[in-house]
């Protein structure tokens, strides 16, 4: 993975998108990986009894997908400092989640090179289902070591 440096990013720089088609198998794998066995995400009968049309995608899945988009982009020496998101439209097995984002602010604070990013998740119809934001720190090209 190529390292992204603070000098290579500007306000308006777009973050490479991450696309996730989510089906029941993905949700079962995710439930096992995160030790979250809440049946509404993996058992259709339970989800129907709860009044949902199908198993729904847990909110943390949106956060994890957004985190992947950012950490894929920022390189090993980048640091995700802050991530916040809200799921405003519930999504279900069979939906596709598209994570997108761009840099809104570039600044330095307490010795860190920081980027505030506007990020979000859209579904297969282009509807925004989860508005979000993140703060990332990046190394500068002339730094030996960045923490």
């Amino acid at each position, binding site marked *: 993975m190529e390292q992204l440096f603070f000098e290579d990013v500007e306000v308006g720089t777009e973050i490479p998108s991450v696309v996730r088609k989510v089906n029941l198998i993905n949700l079962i794998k995710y439930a096992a990986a995160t030790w979250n066995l809440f049946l509404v995400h993996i058992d259709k009968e339970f989800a129907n009894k709860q009044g949902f049309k199908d198993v729904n995608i847990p909110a943390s899945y949106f956060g994890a997908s957004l985190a992947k988009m950012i*950490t894929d982009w920022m390189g090993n020496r980048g*640091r995700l*400092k802050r*991530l916040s*998101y809200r799921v405003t439209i*519930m999504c279900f097995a069979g939906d596709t989640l598209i994570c997108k984002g761009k840099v809104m602010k570039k600044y330095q604070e307490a010795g860190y090179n920081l980027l505030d990013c506007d990020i979000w998740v859209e579904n297969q119809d282009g509807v925004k289902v989860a508005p979000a934001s993140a703060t990332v720190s990046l190394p500068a090209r002339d730094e030996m070591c960045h923490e």
Partner: protein
Amino acid sequence: MLRQHIYLISYRADTETGDDGRDLTRIALPGFRVARGGNEYQFLEPVRPGDVISRKRKIIDVFERDSKKVGKIIFIVYDTTYTNQEGKPLGINRETLMFFR
């Protein structure tokens, strides 16, 4: 050197679950359906292999809102702070849960 960055978005493997599969240590309101509204994570320090992580929860806010789809929703906002064996804060998760009939 392999660096481990573990983003704290999940739960412990050994906690008990209720009949609905939900972790019994999570905040619950019997008789209500639940969905997560969102999260605000602060990642303060990297987590390293060998770390022993403790967590502490604090309820920040409880309020009600009306919605067209499901009627009244009860919101519970709470902070979970994760610290390591030196008492160093590793991360903070501010989470919103929504309870509705």
